[in-house]
Protein backbone atom coordinates (compact mmCIF):
# COMPACT_ATOMS: atom_id res chain seq x y z
CA UNK A 1 0.00 0.00 0.00
CA UNK A 2 2.76 2.39 1.01
CA UNK A 3 4.80 1.44 -2.05
CA UNK A 4 1.80 2.09 -4.28
CA UNK A 5 1.33 5.52 -2.74
CA UNK A 6 4.94 6.54 -3.30
CA UNK A 7 4.86 5.06 -6.81
CA UNK A 8 1.78 7.14 -7.60
CA UNK A 9 3.44 10.26 -6.21
CA UNK A 10 6.51 9.54 -8.31
CA UNK A 11 4.48 9.14 -11.47
CA UNK A 12 2.62 12.37 -10.77
CA UNK A 13 5.86 14.28 -10.21
CA UNK A 14 7.53 12.87 -13.30
CA UNK A 15 4.51 13.37 -15.53
CA UNK A 16 3.85 16.87 -14.26
CA UNK A 17 4.45 19.90 -16.43
CA UNK A 18 7.65 21.71 -15.56
CA UNK A 19 5.94 24.36 -13.44
CA UNK A 20 3.41 22.13 -11.73
CA UNK A 21 3.52 21.71 -7.96
CA UNK A 22 2.24 18.91 -5.79
CA UNK A 23 1.33 20.17 -2.34
CA UNK A 24 0.60 18.33 0.89
CA UNK A 25 -0.86 20.42 3.70
CA UNK A 26 -1.55 18.94 7.14
CA UNK A 27 -3.36 21.57 9.18
CA UNK A 28 -4.88 22.41 12.54
CA UNK A 29 -8.23 24.14 12.55
CA UNK A 30 -10.10 26.41 14.91
CA UNK A 31 -13.68 27.47 14.53
CA UNK A 32 -14.01 31.16 15.20
CA UNK A 33 -17.66 32.06 15.06
CA UNK A 34 -20.95 30.95 13.65
CA UNK A 35 -23.73 28.49 14.30
CA UNK A 36 -21.49 25.67 15.58
CA UNK A 37 -19.47 25.42 18.79
CA UNK A 38 -16.86 28.17 18.44
CA UNK A 39 -13.24 28.06 19.56
CA UNK A 40 -13.05 24.28 19.31
CA UNK A 41 -10.54 22.69 17.04
CA UNK A 42 -9.97 20.09 14.44
CA UNK A 43 -7.25 18.64 12.27
CA UNK A 44 -7.02 17.74 8.64
CA UNK A 45 -4.91 17.21 5.59
CA UNK A 46 -5.14 18.48 2.02
CA UNK A 47 -3.46 17.24 -1.12
CA UNK A 48 -3.34 19.62 -4.06
CA UNK A 49 -1.96 20.03 -7.52
CA UNK A 50 -1.11 23.55 -8.72
CA UNK A 51 -0.49 24.73 -12.26
CA UNK A 52 0.49 28.16 -13.57
CA UNK A 53 -2.50 29.63 -15.36
CA UNK A 54 -1.83 33.18 -16.43
CA UNK A 55 1.15 35.38 -15.58
CA UNK A 56 1.40 35.44 -11.79
CA UNK A 57 -1.75 33.44 -11.21
CA UNK A 58 -1.84 29.74 -10.45
CA UNK A 59 -4.79 27.39 -10.33
CA UNK A 60 -4.86 24.47 -7.96
CA UNK A 61 -7.23 21.65 -7.25
CA UNK A 62 -7.07 19.97 -3.89
CA UNK A 63 -8.85 17.43 -1.77
CA UNK A 64 -9.22 18.44 1.85
CA UNK A 65 -10.49 16.36 4.73
CA UNK A 66 -10.90 17.70 8.26
CA UNK A 67 -12.04 16.11 11.51
CA UNK A 68 -13.83 18.49 13.90
CA UNK A 69 -14.40 17.58 17.52
CA UNK A 70 -17.34 18.85 19.62
CA UNK A 71 -18.96 20.31 16.53
CA UNK A 72 -22.36 21.64 17.54
CA UNK A 73 -23.24 23.65 20.60
CA UNK A 74 -24.78 21.36 23.19
CA UNK A 75 -27.88 23.46 23.62
CA UNK A 76 -28.63 23.36 19.89
CA UNK A 77 -28.81 19.56 19.72
CA UNK A 78 -30.03 18.77 23.24
CA UNK A 79 -33.51 18.05 21.85
CA UNK A 80 -32.17 14.93 20.12
CA UNK A 81 -31.78 13.03 23.40
CA UNK A 82 -33.67 12.87 26.70
CA UNK A 83 -32.74 15.38 29.37
CA UNK A 84 -29.59 14.47 31.25
CA UNK A 85 -28.06 12.44 28.42
CA UNK A 86 -24.68 13.73 27.26
CA UNK A 87 -24.69 13.92 23.45
CA UNK A 88 -21.35 14.21 21.67
CA UNK A 89 -21.11 15.69 18.20
CA UNK A 90 -18.19 15.46 15.79
CA UNK A 91 -17.94 16.15 12.09
CA UNK A 92 -15.91 15.03 9.12
CA UNK A 93 -15.68 17.63 6.37
CA UNK A 94 -14.66 16.47 2.90
CA UNK A 95 -14.07 19.25 0.39
CA UNK A 96 -12.87 19.63 -3.16
CA UNK A 97 -11.23 23.03 -3.39
CA UNK A 98 -10.33 25.35 -6.20
CA UNK A 99 -7.29 27.32 -5.03
CA UNK A 100 -6.04 30.41 -6.84
CA UNK A 101 -2.67 31.61 -5.53
CA UNK A 102 -1.05 34.77 -6.83
CA UNK A 103 2.70 35.29 -6.73
CA UNK A 104 3.88 38.65 -5.43
CA UNK A 105 6.44 40.33 -7.67
CA UNK A 106 9.67 40.97 -5.74
CA UNK A 107 8.48 38.73 -2.89
CA UNK A 108 7.77 35.34 -4.42
CA UNK A 109 8.00 33.56 -1.05
CA UNK A 110 4.58 35.05 -0.29
CA UNK A 111 1.49 33.80 -2.09
CA UNK A 112 -1.92 35.13 -1.12
CA UNK A 113 -4.70 32.96 -2.40
CA UNK A 114 -8.43 32.65 -2.71
CA UNK A 115 -10.19 29.37 -2.15
CA UNK A 116 -13.57 28.05 -3.18
CA UNK A 117 -14.80 24.65 -2.11
CA UNK A 118 -17.69 22.27 -2.52
CA UNK A 119 -18.10 19.08 -0.56
CA UNK A 120 -19.89 17.38 2.27
CA UNK A 121 -20.07 17.61 6.03
CA UNK A 122 -20.88 14.39 7.87
CA UNK A 123 -21.90 15.12 11.43
CA UNK A 124 -21.82 12.29 13.97
CA UNK A 125 -24.08 12.16 17.02
CA UNK A 126 -23.03 9.72 19.73
CA UNK A 127 -23.68 9.05 23.39
CA UNK A 128 -20.89 7.42 25.41
CA UNK A 129 -21.74 3.93 26.57
CA UNK A 130 -24.67 3.26 24.28
CA UNK A 131 -25.44 3.10 20.58
CA UNK A 132 -29.11 3.86 21.10
CA UNK A 133 -28.83 7.50 20.04
CA UNK A 134 -26.08 7.17 17.44
CA UNK A 135 -26.81 8.85 14.13
CA UNK A 136 -25.13 10.79 11.33
CA UNK A 137 -26.18 13.68 9.15
CA UNK A 138 -24.77 14.46 5.69
CA UNK A 139 -24.99 18.00 4.39
CA UNK A 140 -23.85 19.57 1.15
CA UNK A 141 -21.24 22.17 2.07
CA UNK A 142 -19.91 25.25 0.34
CA UNK A 143 -16.88 27.22 1.45
CA UNK A 144 -15.00 30.31 0.43
CA UNK A 145 -12.08 32.18 1.90
CA UNK A 146 -8.68 33.74 1.59
CA UNK A 147 -5.28 32.70 2.83
CA UNK A 148 -1.55 33.05 2.59
CA UNK A 149 1.26 30.66 1.69
CA UNK A 150 4.79 31.41 2.81
CA UNK A 151 7.86 29.52 1.69
CA UNK A 152 10.40 28.63 4.39
CA UNK A 153 12.68 26.27 2.48
CA UNK A 154 12.65 24.57 -0.90
CA UNK A 155 10.50 21.83 0.66
CA UNK A 156 8.61 23.50 3.50
CA UNK A 157 6.22 26.35 3.79
CA UNK A 158 3.60 27.78 6.10
CA UNK A 159 0.02 28.12 5.00
CA UNK A 160 -2.98 29.63 6.74
CA UNK A 161 -6.44 30.60 5.63
CA UNK A 162 -9.76 31.86 6.88
CA UNK A 163 -12.87 30.31 5.39
CA UNK A 164 -16.58 30.66 5.72
CA UNK A 165 -18.29 27.29 5.43
CA UNK A 166 -21.99 26.87 4.91
CA UNK A 167 -23.80 23.56 5.17
CA UNK A 168 -27.20 23.04 3.59
CA UNK A 169 -29.35 20.81 5.79
CA UNK A 170 -32.28 18.82 4.47
CA UNK A 171 -34.88 20.19 6.85
CA UNK A 172 -37.46 17.61 5.77
CA UNK A 173 -35.45 14.85 7.41
CA UNK A 174 -35.76 14.46 11.13
CA UNK A 175 -32.75 13.92 13.34
CA UNK A 176 -29.57 15.90 13.41
CA UNK A 177 -29.14 19.63 13.28
CA UNK A 178 -32.47 21.15 12.30
CA UNK A 179 -31.45 23.89 9.85
CA UNK A 180 -28.68 25.25 7.62
CA UNK A 181 -25.58 26.30 9.50
CA UNK A 182 -22.49 28.31 8.76
CA UNK A 183 -19.27 29.10 10.53
CA UNK A 184 -15.90 30.78 10.18
CA UNK A 185 -12.88 28.54 10.36
CA UNK A 186 -9.16 29.24 10.44
CA UNK A 187 -6.67 26.60 9.29
CA UNK A 188 -2.94 26.75 9.93
CA UNK A 189 -0.32 24.22 8.93
CA UNK A 190 2.97 23.31 7.38
CA UNK A 191 3.00 22.81 3.63
CA UNK A 192 5.21 20.33 1.80
CA UNK A 193 5.83 20.87 -1.91
CA UNK A 194 7.22 18.78 -4.72
CA UNK A 195 9.29 19.18 -6.75
CA UNK A 196 11.74 20.98 -4.49
CA UNK A 197 12.57 24.49 -5.49
CA UNK A 198 12.13 28.12 -4.80
CA UNK A 199 8.84 29.54 -5.91
CA UNK A 200 9.46 31.46 -9.09
CA UNK A 201 8.27 34.98 -9.63
CA UNK A 202 5.73 34.07 -12.27
CA UNK A 203 5.25 37.69 -13.34
CA UNK A 204 8.82 37.75 -14.54
CA UNK A 205 10.26 36.08 -17.60
CA UNK A 206 13.49 35.41 -15.72
CA UNK A 207 14.08 31.80 -14.69
CA UNK A 208 13.84 31.21 -10.90
Amino acid sequence: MRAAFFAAMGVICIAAPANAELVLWPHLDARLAGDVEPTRGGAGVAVGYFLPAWRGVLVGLELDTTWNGHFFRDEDVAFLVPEGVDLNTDALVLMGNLVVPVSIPSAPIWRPYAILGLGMTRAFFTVPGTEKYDSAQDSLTFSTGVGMMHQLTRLLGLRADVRYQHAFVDEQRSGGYPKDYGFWNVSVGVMFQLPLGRWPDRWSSKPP
Partner: protein
Amino acid sequence: MRPFPFWLVVVISFGLSTALAPTARAHTGTQVGARGGVQLLDDDVLRDQYAASFGGEVRLSFALSPLIVALSFDNYFVTDRTLFQVGASALYDLPIRHAFLYPYVGAGLGLTRFALPETGAGVSPEEPGGSEPESPATPATDSNGMRTGLNLVGGLRFDHLEVSLVRPFAQITLSVGPIDMLTVTAGVLFELEGR
Protein backbone atom coordinates in the same frame (compact mmCIF):
# COMPACT_ATOMS: atom_id res chain seq x y z
CA MET B 1 -24.57 34.26 13.63
CA ARG B 2 -22.11 35.40 16.27
CA PRO B 3 -20.00 38.49 15.59
CA PHE B 4 -16.73 38.07 13.77
CA PRO B 5 -13.90 38.02 16.34
CA PHE B 6 -11.90 41.21 16.49
CA TRP B 7 -8.56 39.47 16.99
CA LEU B 8 -8.76 37.97 13.52
CA VAL B 9 -8.21 41.50 12.27
CA VAL B 10 -5.01 41.57 14.31
CA VAL B 11 -3.80 38.35 12.68
CA ILE B 12 -4.60 39.55 9.19
CA SER B 13 -2.83 42.82 9.94
CA PHE B 14 0.21 40.89 11.13
CA GLY B 15 0.23 38.81 7.95
CA LEU B 16 -0.09 41.85 5.74
CA SER B 17 2.60 43.79 7.61
CA THR B 18 5.10 40.96 7.32
CA ALA B 19 4.21 40.42 3.69
CA LEU B 20 4.65 44.05 2.77
CA ALA B 21 7.69 44.78 4.93
CA PRO B 22 11.20 44.42 3.52
CA THR B 23 12.09 40.75 3.39
CA ALA B 24 15.09 40.72 5.69
CA ARG B 25 16.51 37.25 6.11
CA ALA B 26 16.61 35.59 9.49
CA HIS B 27 19.64 33.56 10.47
CA THR B 28 19.32 29.95 9.43
CA GLY B 29 19.49 27.64 12.37
CA THR B 30 17.95 26.04 15.41
CA GLN B 31 17.78 27.43 18.92
CA VAL B 32 16.51 25.62 21.99
CA GLY B 33 16.00 26.99 25.44
CA ALA B 34 14.08 27.20 28.67
CA ARG B 35 11.72 29.87 29.82
CA GLY B 36 9.68 30.86 32.82
CA GLY B 37 6.95 33.37 33.38
CA VAL B 38 4.00 34.71 35.28
CA GLN B 39 0.36 34.60 34.19
CA LEU B 40 -1.33 37.91 34.97
CA LEU B 41 -5.07 37.39 34.38
CA ASP B 42 -7.35 36.23 37.17
CA ASP B 43 -9.85 33.39 36.95
CA ASP B 44 -11.35 31.66 39.98
CA VAL B 45 -12.03 28.39 38.20
CA LEU B 46 -9.08 27.61 36.02
CA ARG B 47 -6.05 29.43 37.26
CA ASP B 48 -4.69 31.90 39.77
CA GLN B 49 -3.48 35.36 39.07
CA TYR B 50 0.30 35.43 39.15
CA ALA B 51 0.53 31.69 38.54
CA ALA B 52 4.07 30.76 37.62
CA SER B 53 4.87 28.94 34.41
CA PHE B 54 7.89 27.03 33.24
CA GLY B 55 8.64 25.42 29.92
CA GLY B 56 10.81 25.08 26.88
CA GLU B 57 11.03 26.53 23.43
CA VAL B 58 12.53 25.70 20.04
CA ARG B 59 13.02 28.40 17.44
CA LEU B 60 13.67 27.50 13.83
CA SER B 61 14.82 29.96 11.21
CA PHE B 62 15.00 29.27 7.50
CA ALA B 63 17.01 30.22 4.48
CA LEU B 64 14.26 31.74 2.38
CA SER B 65 12.13 33.38 5.02
CA PRO B 66 12.34 36.26 7.48
CA LEU B 67 9.95 34.43 9.77
CA ILE B 68 11.08 32.38 12.75
CA VAL B 69 8.93 29.43 13.78
CA ALA B 70 8.71 29.06 17.55
CA LEU B 71 7.44 25.84 19.12
CA SER B 72 6.81 26.08 22.85
CA PHE B 73 5.55 24.21 25.89
CA ASP B 74 4.51 25.94 29.11
CA ASN B 75 3.25 24.31 32.27
CA TYR B 76 1.32 26.55 34.67
CA PHE B 77 1.66 25.74 38.34
CA VAL B 78 -1.86 26.02 39.74
CA THR B 79 -2.92 24.22 42.92
CA ASP B 80 -5.05 21.10 42.28
CA ARG B 81 -5.31 21.84 38.58
CA THR B 82 -3.56 20.85 35.41
CA LEU B 83 -2.92 23.61 32.94
CA PHE B 84 -0.40 23.56 30.15
CA GLN B 85 -0.10 24.94 26.67
CA VAL B 86 1.63 23.75 23.52
CA GLY B 87 2.13 26.59 21.06
CA ALA B 88 3.38 27.22 17.56
CA SER B 89 3.98 30.79 16.45
CA ALA B 90 5.56 32.66 13.58
CA LEU B 91 7.83 35.44 14.85
CA TYR B 92 9.01 38.42 12.87
CA ASP B 93 11.93 40.68 13.77
CA LEU B 94 10.77 44.28 13.47
CA PRO B 95 12.99 46.42 11.23
CA ILE B 96 13.82 48.79 14.12
CA ARG B 97 16.60 46.74 15.64
CA HIS B 98 19.24 48.04 18.00
CA ALA B 99 22.86 46.85 17.71
CA PHE B 100 22.10 43.85 19.88
CA LEU B 101 18.43 44.17 20.83
CA TYR B 102 15.89 42.76 18.43
CA PRO B 103 12.21 43.50 19.02
CA TYR B 104 9.81 41.03 17.48
CA VAL B 105 6.14 40.31 17.13
CA GLY B 106 4.35 37.13 16.31
CA ALA B 107 1.13 35.20 16.07
CA GLY B 108 0.27 31.56 16.29
CA LEU B 109 -1.90 28.83 17.69
CA GLY B 110 -1.96 27.58 21.25
CA LEU B 111 -3.42 24.25 22.36
CA THR B 112 -4.26 24.57 26.04
CA ARG B 113 -4.93 21.46 28.09
CA PHE B 114 -6.76 21.82 31.37
CA ALA B 115 -8.11 19.53 34.09
CA LEU B 116 -10.10 20.64 37.10
CA PRO B 117 -10.50 18.62 40.30
CA GLU B 118 -13.64 16.49 40.16
CA THR B 119 -15.23 18.25 43.11
CA GLY B 120 -14.50 21.70 41.74
CA ALA B 121 -16.50 24.16 39.79
CA GLY B 122 -17.82 23.26 36.42
CA VAL B 123 -18.11 19.52 37.03
CA SER B 124 -20.98 17.78 35.38
CA PRO B 125 -23.53 16.56 37.99
CA GLU B 126 -23.49 13.03 36.62
CA GLU B 127 -19.77 12.68 37.35
CA PRO B 128 -18.77 11.04 40.65
CA GLY B 129 -18.32 13.67 43.29
CA GLY B 130 -19.73 16.40 41.12
CA SER B 131 -21.71 19.21 42.65
CA GLU B 132 -25.20 20.06 41.52
CA PRO B 133 -25.49 23.07 39.26
CA GLU B 134 -27.07 26.18 40.71
CA SER B 135 -30.23 25.70 38.71
CA PRO B 136 -31.51 23.15 36.20
CA ALA B 137 -30.92 25.69 33.45
CA THR B 138 -27.24 26.01 34.29
CA PRO B 139 -25.30 24.05 31.70
CA ALA B 140 -22.67 21.64 32.93
CA THR B 141 -19.13 22.57 31.94
CA ASP B 142 -16.31 20.27 30.91
CA SER B 143 -13.97 19.44 33.78
CA ASN B 144 -11.12 18.71 31.42
CA GLY B 145 -10.25 19.11 27.80
CA MET B 146 -8.13 20.85 25.24
CA ARG B 147 -8.92 24.18 23.68
CA THR B 148 -7.49 25.96 20.66
CA GLY B 149 -6.72 29.64 20.87
CA LEU B 150 -4.75 32.38 19.25
CA ASN B 151 -1.42 33.54 20.68
CA LEU B 152 -0.21 37.07 20.04
CA VAL B 153 3.41 37.64 20.95
CA GLY B 154 5.60 40.70 21.46
CA GLY B 155 9.14 40.50 22.74
CA LEU B 156 12.74 41.56 22.79
CA ARG B 157 15.73 39.33 22.04
CA PHE B 158 19.32 39.98 23.08
CA ASP B 159 21.64 38.89 20.28
CA HIS B 160 25.25 40.03 20.46
CA LEU B 161 27.95 38.84 18.09
CA GLU B 162 30.41 38.25 20.93
CA VAL B 163 27.89 36.10 22.84
CA SER B 164 26.39 34.37 19.87
CA LEU B 165 25.61 31.03 21.53
CA VAL B 166 23.34 32.45 24.25
CA ARG B 167 20.33 34.59 23.47
CA PRO B 168 18.21 35.81 26.38
CA PHE B 169 14.75 37.07 25.58
CA ALA B 170 11.67 38.50 27.25
CA GLN B 171 8.20 38.52 25.79
CA ILE B 172 4.53 39.01 26.48
CA THR B 173 2.08 36.43 25.17
CA LEU B 174 -1.63 37.13 24.97
CA SER B 175 -3.68 33.96 24.53
CA VAL B 176 -7.13 34.72 23.15
CA GLY B 177 -9.92 32.22 22.87
CA PRO B 178 -11.82 29.96 25.22
CA ILE B 179 -9.01 30.24 27.77
CA ASP B 180 -7.60 33.76 27.99
CA MET B 181 -4.15 34.24 29.45
CA LEU B 182 -1.61 37.03 29.57
CA THR B 183 1.85 35.74 30.36
CA VAL B 184 5.09 37.62 30.82
CA THR B 185 7.96 35.30 29.99
CA ALA B 186 11.73 35.42 30.11
CA GLY B 187 14.13 32.78 28.94
CA VAL B 188 17.39 31.83 27.36
CA LEU B 189 17.93 30.29 23.94
CA PHE B 190 21.03 28.36 22.91
CA GLU B 191 22.20 28.20 19.34
CA LEU B 192 22.46 24.59 18.21
CA GLU B 193 23.51 25.05 14.61
CA GLY B 194 23.66 27.65 11.90
CA ARG B 195 23.95 31.36 12.24
